[in-house]
């Protein structure tokens, strides 16, 4: 059931993002758009001969994007029917990376062709920078007190949760009592607020775009642009706080994993909804101003590598408004931008390594060896040695009668290993295959173990030999 919800959730989140990217990258009519494949649209492109050529470029790459988009949609539907949570999670993670890369390929090719065509027309970058003296440093839309209040609320909620977990506030958390899982879960959701706060300040203090000779038009455009982002961050922060409160209530009144998955699903849908609202407002704003009032556009096409990454060593700014999608990106040539880019690359590589590791964990069966002196539980790099001389008692039971939550370690369909909190027992060591459905409880002088072999028969044989 959890696996099915997860698949649906990923589908509902990933497909709208891909559809949004498709329509923003490959518009059918390019003539009224501010850019064509990330290259500024200009009067020279609108002559009869040029527009014929650009029509072909747009048609060709849109067609490629159609094929890629359709393929990605079919793959996403197939992924819905994959068995098992772990396999599904790995497949969806890889799908997200591959789809984001694939959908951008025709755009990058189009960008390269447009830059070449621009050169053929003899257009060189004028490298003229504009600044509006009247508005410089004056346009702000962020409601700072409200943003701070949302963050104080988040911190207060995490503090209350930690106090409940530490039993200072006497609230029953059932199986989660004293595990600090509740605090970790709620903190991981609310940390989004703390991460978003510096971004809100950064965008509010960011450079104003000069789109017109008229300072009032520039002021109105930039004020609206910053307000849309500020409203997005503040509404998102309150939504996250609501999710935090709901999570705490679920921990107090309901103790099942399915509730947690539903809360996470709700959280992701809220993120998607908030972002969609932001995107709709931003597109409407650009449509209003860019089609009528914009007469000053900085020609920085060459600084956009493939139309996606901004690299300009002469530009001292760190954040630049994106050309692909919504929001802001970093100037890779900026000293801080270089570190952020490295961090981004490391995160991608790290997550891929993690996926390989999870994959190995999911496919390698656990092994239990009953030696002369020790019972050795082994899988990949993990090994538990239980000294037979220290065994006080053993017990054989049904896993579905056991109420346990993971405190630290691995919890997958076919592997549960690490420290778990068992209802009525406390913290124990697990090393079992939950699909077997049975466990052997081994009580030693200093620890309690719940183990099984990889199959039911092997587990029964193991119990017979240990007891």
């Amino acid at each position, binding site marked *: 059931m959890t696996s099915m919800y997860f698949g649906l959730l990923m589908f509902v989140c990933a497909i709208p993002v891909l559809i949004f990217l498709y329509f923003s990258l490959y518009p059918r009519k390019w003539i009224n758009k501010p850019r064509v494949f990330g290259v500024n649209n200009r009067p020279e492109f609108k002559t009869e001969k040029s527009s014929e050529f650009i029509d072909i470029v747009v048609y060709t790459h849109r067609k490629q994007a159609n094929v890629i988009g359709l393929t990605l949609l079919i793959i996403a539907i197939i992924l819905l029917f994959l068995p098992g949570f772990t396999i599904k999670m790995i497949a969806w993670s890889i799908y997200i990376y591959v789809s984001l890369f694939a959908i951008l390929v025709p755009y990058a090719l189009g960008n390269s062709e447009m830059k070449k065509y621009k050169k053929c027309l003899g257009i060189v970058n004028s490298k003229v*920078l*504009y600044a*509006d*003296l*009247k508005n*410089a440093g004056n346009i702000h839309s962020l409601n700072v007190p409200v943003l701070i209040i949302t963050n104080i609320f988040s911190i207060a909620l995490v503090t209350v949760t930690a106090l409940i977990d530490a039993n200072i506030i006497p609230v029953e958390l059932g199986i989660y009592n004293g595990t600090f899982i509740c605090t970790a879960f709620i903190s991981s959701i609310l940390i989004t607020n703390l991460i978003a706060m510096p971004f809100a300040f950064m965008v509010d203090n960011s450079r104003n775009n000069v789109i017109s000779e008229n300072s009032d038009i520039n002021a109105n455009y930039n004020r609206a642009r910053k307000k849309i982002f500020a409203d997005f961050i503040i509404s998102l922060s309150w939504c996250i706080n609501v999710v935090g409160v709901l999570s705490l209530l679920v921990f107090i009144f309901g103790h099942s994993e399915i509730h947690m998955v539903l809360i996470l699903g709700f959280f992701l849908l809220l993120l998607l909804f908030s972002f969609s609202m932001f995107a709709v407002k931003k597109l409407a704003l650009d449509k209003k101003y860019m089609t009528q009032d914009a007469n*000053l556009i900085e020609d920085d096409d060459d600084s956009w590598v493939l139309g996606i990454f901004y690299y300009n060593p002469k530009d*001292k700014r760190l954040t630049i408004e994106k050309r692909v999608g919504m929001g802001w990106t970093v100037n890779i040539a900026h000293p801080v931008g270089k570190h952020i880019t490295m961090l981004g690359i490391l995160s991608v590589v790290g997550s891929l390594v993690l996926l390989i590791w999870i994959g190995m964990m999911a496919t390698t069966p656990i092994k239990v060896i009953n030696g002369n002196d020790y019972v050795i539980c082994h899988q990949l790099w993990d090994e538990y040695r239980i000294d037979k001389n220290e065994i006080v008692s053993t017990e054989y039971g049904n896993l579905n009668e056991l109420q346990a939550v993971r405190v630290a370690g691995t919890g997958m369909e076919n592997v549960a290993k690490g420290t778990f909190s068992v209802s009525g027992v406390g913290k124990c060591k697990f090393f079992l295959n939950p699909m077997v459905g049975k466990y052997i409880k081994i009580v030693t002088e200093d620890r309690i173990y719940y183990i099984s072999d990889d199959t039911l028969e092997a587990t029964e044989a193991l119990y017979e030999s240990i007891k």
Partner: protein
Amino acid sequence: MIIKINEYSDVPIYLQIRNQIVMGISSGELSAGEQLPTVRALSMEIGINTMTVSKAYQILKSEGYIMTDRKNGARVRTEINQTKSLSNVNKEELKRIVSEAKISGLSKGEFDKIINEMWGK
């Protein structure tokens, strides 16, 4: 007022800023006593080093076009010292422009017309 900085120009950026602020004062786009952006804000708007903007402001201040103080930042001077004469540097520049105009075959009347148009702006 919109400042336009050409990165490919032979004229240094601080001089481009200085010249455009002077032209803004002359045309009335920047009125007497009008607040100018801070060095940090303007450098961020153009995406250049703060030292470049600071240098432009120092020149404008030494030439008497703007005044700066810690509390109010930079402002256009309410009373700019009117020497009623051209500096030697500007005379030399004008001489060069007139010479080039003569060589290109421009008549005095046409040249006057251009001057009048610019004067009127």
